[in-house]
């Protein structure tokens, strides 16, 4: 009886992926708050928001790249290279904010190499970005022989360690970025083209859309956002390390896929990705609070992927 009532209540809404995600997320919150008294606290929520920024920033362009029917596996290496470039630039006596710009330029440059090869020469995105992953990670060692770089001026830590009205600065930045990107995807021609690219590239090309330029832009954005994530990471950890961002691409892709973006492109949304992001970071946080060993955590994450994305058909 009550279930049918609930059913009728839900009817007006489209029973879609987003609702499933919301319900899953809510169930998770309920479950963890019964398991740990510390889970449902303001401090813990802010703590989680602070942690999800790097993955979240990269997930924005990754969602667009996947919607357009491609993939970028080099984001973690770009993050690392930009972080170390920031450190090196500052060490060489540059102003810290100039160093940040250097890092962003390095990231965009890496992204444009990806974009040039993939968009202009139509090379396979996966293999090009695997190659870039290995090469850029190697470049980091060439640049500073793997030594971590630390000792930044106090104002720089504003980005990663400070909070405004209790909310971490980097989380605010992330949310603003998500809002801007969502607006761009929904209201601009660029957004329409990105979806079009993923659905039917040929048709889009013949209707006169600059396909190459759009795809190129997507990879440059991917590089730029990875570099931003690198900057925030350095600010949060107060140290630029050669290993920064290793395997972050897996977290990013997992969040994007759980968020309902279709792996073969054409479908997906940034709101979904944001939900996916919340689900994986709160899952990890809740399991940590419960003291669950990481070994079980990875099994649980795997099962969750199958559940959340399992209904995506080929």
């Amino acid at each position: 009886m009550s279930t049918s009532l609930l059913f009728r209540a839900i009817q007006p809404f489209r029973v879609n992926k987003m609702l499933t995600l919301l319900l899953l997320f809510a169930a998770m919150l309920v479950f963890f708050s019964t398991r740990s008294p510390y889970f449902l606290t303001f401090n813990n929520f802010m703590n989680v928001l602070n942690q999800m920024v790097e993955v979240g920033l990269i997930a924005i362009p990754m969602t667009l790249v996947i919607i357009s029917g491609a993939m970028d596996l080099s984001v973690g290496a770009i993050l690392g290279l930009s972080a170390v470039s920031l450190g090196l630039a500052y060490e060489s006596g540059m102003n810290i904010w100039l160093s940040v710009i250097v890092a962003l330029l390095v990231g965009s440059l890496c992204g444009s190499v990806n974009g040039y090869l993939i968009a202009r020469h139509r090379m396979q995105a996966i293999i090009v970005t695997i190659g870039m992953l290995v090469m850029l990670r190697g470049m980091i060692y060439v640049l500073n022989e793997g030594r971590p770089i630390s000792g930044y001026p106090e104002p720089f830590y504003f980005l990663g360690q400070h909070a405004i009205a209790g909310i971490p600065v980097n989380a605010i930045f992330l949310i603003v970025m998500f809002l801007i990107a969502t607006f761009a995807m929904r209201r601009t021609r660029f957004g329409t083209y990105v979806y079009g690219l993923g659905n039917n590239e040929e048709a889009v090309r013949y209707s006169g859309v600059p396909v190459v330029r759009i795809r190129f832009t997507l990879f440059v954005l991917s590089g730029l956002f990875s570099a931003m994530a690198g900057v925030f990471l350095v600010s949060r950890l107060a140290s630029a390390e050669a290993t920064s961002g290793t395997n972050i691409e897996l977290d990013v892709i997992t969040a994007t896929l759980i968020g309902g973006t279709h792996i073969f492109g054409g479908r997906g949304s940034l709101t979904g990705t944001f939900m996916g992001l919340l689900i994986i970071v709160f899952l990890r946080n809740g399991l940590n609070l419960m003291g669950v060993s990481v070994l079980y955590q990875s099994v649980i994450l795997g099962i969750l992927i199958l559940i959340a994305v399992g209904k995506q058909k080929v």
Partner: protein
Amino acid sequence: MKKIGSTLAIGLLAFALAACGNLGNNGGANTPSAGGDTSATAASSSESRSYFINPKSIGPAYWAAAEKGAKQAGTDLGVEVIFNAPTEADSAKQINMIQDMLTRQVSGIGVSPNDAKAVGPVFKKAADQNVQIVTWDSDAPETDRKYYVAPATDEEVGQKLAQTIGDELGGKGQVAFMVAGLGAQNQIAKADAAKAHLAANYRDIEVVTTVASDDDQQKAFANAQNLIKTYPELKGIIGFAGGESPAAAEVIEQAVKAGTLKQGQIALTGIAVPSLVKNYVHNGTITTDIIWDPGILGYVTVYVLDQLAQGNEITDGMEVPNVGPIKVDGQNIFIGMLEVTKDNVDTFSF
């Protein structure tokens, strides 16, 4: 709707699994003690103090041995010990986990930092919350940590390794270094110290190269093969992490068996858990292996944290129950290194 229902059902199943995992964990923690009920009463009597012990990563045998020691200390002292870390030695993931445990309001954290500088902010936050902080195995100087529990300083370990290989070679020949990561700070510190020690004391020893395995056994294995091939004059190898010397030993033994290398042509030493190198030490491929008891390291870390949480002082020569006296030098607590040789390799339980 049905779909959503089933999704949720499976979802809850997954969390039930999580709960089981949790139970399994606690069960594991209690097994060394007499039984579950003793630890339960002990926990309530000590106002449920809990400590988070955080190695660099989960997986290597070395950390598994440390976990046993830390958990044992937990049962002996009647406190809760949570031993966890990411599966990869990644500083960002490690710090996220420490932050999570701080919201859980543990009484103290024992951290083996992947990056000494990066834990600074999170240690500061912990200190503000009155959480006791101790580093172990790897240090983070210039932070809010109270003590550093270690076998010896990285410099001493590096010098010890250099000394061992120097003496075995009679002070002459080419030596190669094998490390886990080119960017890992504890590896850099040890390797630099070893290099300096060799340069100062054994002028005829030349360090030809340093190869990194990124903690991958197959890569360490291939690295060792390539080293032997590239440097026919190679006389010695030092492995600076737990996986390097077993891999090198395997390569040397296979080469000896294949006849491309003479027995004893390459001297090998390194840091490795005795159980991993038992056979190689018996066969004489490794004459001396340097190690310390990671279990004791974990045990002392928990003990020190518990003393600090109760407001007790840590003094030089103080007696740690079941371990013995410890050496305290300023903010450093040393438990000492062990030399593993053919004669004692079977006496270690880790």
